[in-house]
Each structure stands twice: as structure tokens, then as C-alpha cells.
């Protein structure tokens, strides 16, 4: 537990929750990031502008963070092939499963959805399993 960061992680989590409440209160939208992203490519095209703005906000936050708080993290030895495979699985799985860590996690658990609780339990379990394989088997 040498990297445990309880204070910043709890505070960051509170900000994520507040941002989700903000979006719901102001726009009536659920801050599920996978749904916001996939909806950009929906056919027929729906309301894209708020999705683009939310995603622009996410990237702006990162640019500001790197400029004023801490440099971007670098990771050695993680090949782009792995990044592509992981992205494909995450995109496919979140689309079929109807949500990710934010949609099922932050928002779904917040409205006490059993469906979301099941999803969170499953992706936590398979996430731990695949990390185990990546770090201790391969």
C-alpha cells in the first residue's frame, strides 16, 4: 500500500460526483463517459454539441493540469498494440454493457440501480483478473 493517496483520491472523487450532478441538474444528462463518446457516432446523428463540449472539457482539464499542477505521466514498456487491444475491448464492452466506471459506477450506483451494481461487480472482477494475468502471468 505504498502509493495510497486517501485525501486526494477522496477529494477527486467528490469533484467527479459534483460534475455528474452538475450535468444532470443543468442538462438532464447522465455523465456516463462511454455513452457520451459512443453517442457522438450514433446513427441517425442526435444532439452532438453537448457531447463535444463535455469531451472538450475533459481534455481542457488535462491540459490545464499539466500546465499548472503536474506533468503528464509517462509509461515505459506498454506497447501501442496493447493500447489498441485494450481500447477495442473497452469500446465494445461499454457499448454492449451500456456503461462504464462513470455511467454504471458513479451515476448508476448513485441512483441505487441493481443493474449497475451487477455491472460494477463484474468489471471490477474481470479487471482484477486481467491485470493479474498481465502483471504476474505474461
Amino acid at each position, binding site marked *: *500500500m505504498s502509493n495510497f493517496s486517501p485525501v486526494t*483520491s477522496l477529494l*477527486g472523487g*467528490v469533484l*467527479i460526483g*459534483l*460534475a455528474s450532478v*452538475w*450535468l*444532470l441538474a443543468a442538462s438532464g*444528462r447522465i455523465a456516463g*463517459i462511454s455513452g457520451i*463518446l*459512443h453517442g457522438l*457516432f450514433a446513427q441517425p446523428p442526435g444532439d452532438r*454539441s*453537448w457531447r463535444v*463540449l*463535455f469531451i472538450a*472539457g*475533459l*481534455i481542457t*482539464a*488535462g*491540459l490545464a493540469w499539466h500546465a499548472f499542477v503536474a506533468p503528464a505521466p509517462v*509509461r515505459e514498456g506498454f506497447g501501442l498494440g496493447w*493500447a*489498441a487491444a*485494450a*481500447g*477495442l*475491448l*473497452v*469500446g*465494445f*464492452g*461499454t*457499448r*454492449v*454493457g451500456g456503461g*462504464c*466506471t*462513470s455511467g454504471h*459506477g458513479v*451515476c448508476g*450506483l*448513485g441512483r441505487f440501480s441493481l*443493474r449497475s451494481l*451487477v455491472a460494477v461487480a463484474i*468489471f*471490477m*472482477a*474481470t*479487471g482484477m483478473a*486481467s*491485470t*493479474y494475468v*498481465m*502483471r*504476474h502471468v505474461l
Partner: protein
Amino acid sequence: MIHALGAGILFGIGLWLSGMANPRKVLDFLDVAGDWDPSLLLVMAGAVAVTALTFRPLIRKKDLRFDKTAIDIPLVAGAAIFGIGWGIGGYCPGPAITALSNLTLEPLVFVAAMVGGGLLARIWPSSPGR
């Protein structure tokens, strides 16, 4: 509209402050057999504490409906596949998108593949949800 931008910025700051935008920290959480870092439990606890207090009254007030309640095969299979990808890269969708700000190839490749995976999911027989 300005609210979507503001909420996105606040969400992104939360991801960076909490450590979720750093895939190595995420993997340190998922790696329960290694030098386990439980920080992400607190990220989820902090976020859900806020939404649990506010979402139900807001949803009632706005008369929003969530049609899907079934624990079905797409939910289970989709969540399982998502988790596998999460555990490989340490990125879930939000952190991957805010990490585009790193201006490196890794998040860019991940996000492009994630969009591709979403498009590929249209072959799944049931209609996709959120």
C-alpha cells in the same frame, strides 16, 4: 451548453486529482496480488457519496426514466469484456479521453480503438443502452 463544458472540466480535474487519469495507479488498484493501492476505492466512495445524496431527487424532479432494469446477457458480457480491457491498459473511457491532453500516442491509440470497438458493437443483436 456552457454547463456541459464546465461539467467536463470539473470531471477532468477530479480524474487528475484523484489519480484515476494515471493508468499505472489504476493498475496498482486492480493488482490485488501486488503492492495494492486501495486509493480508487476512495475515488468511487467520494463520487458515489455525492451522487447517492442527489441523484434520486433530481431524477424525480426532472421526471427522467431508465427503462432498462434487466440483468441480461448484454449487461453481463459487456461489463466482463470492458473489465478485461480496463485491466490490460488501466484506462476506462473518462481517463483515456482526458489523457489525450498528454499529447502522446498511447491514449490516442486507445481512444481511437475504443471508438472502433463501439462501432463494432453494432453487430451485437440487441440495441445498445446508455
